[in-house]
């Protein structure tokens, strides 16, 4: 197997590669040395072809029916095995529920420490910054071991530029008899949406608890998002009360976004929510309380009732052409 310094775990949704996971290529380049990409799944041959132009020393592919679902016990084992065979010292991924589930387990198999949500790489690749306490502080940390596992915050690293050199594909042999089978996939409930992915969207509209019911949430938050071609997000309070599904949650324990424009509708601005929106370029807040904490960090603040203001805004945007 081709030797490498950094092994990058690629994420996909069984149809295509998740673009944020490619931002790890930029992080690998900052670390220095060679990097290889690792793709696991079932019948992923077509997808592999989309990964050949990123300057990787090789593209490792573990393609097996038994890897159709990303079950952590078997995925971590295959990843740790590939890591050892290619002689890597760093295992890299992007902070997502997929990576957060699997990478720490792989770290334990490799007897390596891990850092979650790395934002910057400093000191020749030996020092890292990451947010702690819901992003209210930034920690600078070093790792005292040769092997290490890092999950990067995708929005903190640029998308990689393409490369004309073509990486060689290396198929990894997967012995199904050696895979653990203590975890079984049962089912999945995913919504098919025409809207852009929350973590990749240029515009995101977020809704809070005052959106009252699902119908109002969809009409106001969804309506504004559609008028701008954006994605929908929500606060924990909105998800807890059933206004929005769990995967819309933005914040410390949900998704971290960094769009050009974030519009917060009826959102108080709790530190746990801000943790997920701080890196948005422009933030608009619409809140009826002039003292709402969200106004302390919004680029544009409009004091008003969302039930009245948002339909007006949707109307104004429709008329803008």
């Amino acid at each position, binding site marked *: 197997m081709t030797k490498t310094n950094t092994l990058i775990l690629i994420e996909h949704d069984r149809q295509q590669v998740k673009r944020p996971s490619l931002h790890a290529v930029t992080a690998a380049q900052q670390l220095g040395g060679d990097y290889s990409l690792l793709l696991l799944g079932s019948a992923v041959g077509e997808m592999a072809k989309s990964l050949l132009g990123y300057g990787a020393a090789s593209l490792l592919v573990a393609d097996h029916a038994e890897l159709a679902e990303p079950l952590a016990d078997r995925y971590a084992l295959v990843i740790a095995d590939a890591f050892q065979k290619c002689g890597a010292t760093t295992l890299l991924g992007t902070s997502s529920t997929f990576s957060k589930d699997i990478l720490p387990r792989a770290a334990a198999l490799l007897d390596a420490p*891990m850092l979650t949500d790395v934002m910057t790489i400093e000191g020749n690749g030996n020092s890292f910054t990451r947010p702690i*306490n819901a*992003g209210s502080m930034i*920690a600078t940390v070093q790792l005292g071991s040769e092997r290490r596992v890092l999950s990067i915050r995708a929005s903190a690293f640029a998308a990689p530029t393409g490369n004309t050199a073509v990486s060689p594909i290396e198929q990894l042999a997967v012995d199904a008899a050696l895979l653990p089978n203590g*975890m079984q996939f049962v089912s999945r409930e995913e919504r098919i949406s025409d809207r852009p992915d929350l973590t990749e969207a240029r515009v995101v509209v977020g809704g809070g608890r005052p959106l009252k019911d699902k119908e109002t949430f969809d009409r106001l938050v969804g309506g504004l998002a559609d008028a701008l071609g954006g994605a929908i997000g929500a606060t924990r309070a909105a998800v807890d009360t059933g206004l929005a599904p769990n*995967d819309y949650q933005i914040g410390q324990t949900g998704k971290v976004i960094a769009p050009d424009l974030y519009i917060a509708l009826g959102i108080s601005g709790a530190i746990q929510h801000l943790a997920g929106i701080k890196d948005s370029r422009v933030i608009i807040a619409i809140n009826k309380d002039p003292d709402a904490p969200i106004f*302390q960090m919004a680029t*544009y603040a*409009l004091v008003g009732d969302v039930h009245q203001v948002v339909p*007006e805004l949707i109307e104004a945007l429709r008329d803008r052409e």
Partner: protein
Amino acid sequence: MTQPVEKILVAFKSVPDPYEAAAPGDSGSTAKSVINPFDEIAIEEALRIRERGETSEIVGVTIGPSSIDEQVRAAMAMGVDRAIRIDDARLLDPYAVARILRGVIEKEAPQLVLMGKQAVDDDSNQVGQMLAGLLGWPQATFVSKIELLDNRTRARCTRETDAGLEVIDVNLPAIITADLRLNEPRYVSLPGLIKARKKPIDVQTCQQLGVIVEPLTRLSSTARPARRSAGTRVESVAELVIKLKEEAKVL
């Protein structure tokens, strides 16, 4: 005959109260300590499993110095049958915590380990997965529903993922990490707290457990992130649209 899960172990951490540091810019350093909210949810879930008659014992475990005994008592007041504190005052990283917890688990031999998905101070989201890897046990992370199946030899878990919800089955023994919507933890009554004051805490050391670990992560500094400042107040939707077009250029 249905066998109950004999013992559930719940790992919990003491953290600064996240609700006290709820304004942007607050450091949280003066906040009082509480049980990590995700761990409180894990404890609550264990209590509910016991209330359904599906387990006979709940053991709570935490690692930290004696200053966290108040959170240990809070766990006992919630209803854990016994509490172990591994006395360690060092700044540990998740991998060190996982290795110490492995020592406790090897000694206690529970059939199920419940814990939070994430400690809200270090925000690592690692310990449960590392522990499962070290033990070679199945894991279910970010769980919002647990159902014990097949004579309680398996757990059916609903997981909150980036794409929605996923259901998996894990054979026991397993590690399950709790997400926010698994349940709503009960309030601890004052009499409950007073009663818990009298219960003994089983204090052990890493040495007694036979676990020798050094944290591999070194925290060299912490700093406040650059703060966004308050921007412009606009008076109307029309003004907002003009600003977005002409100033922010996002339309």
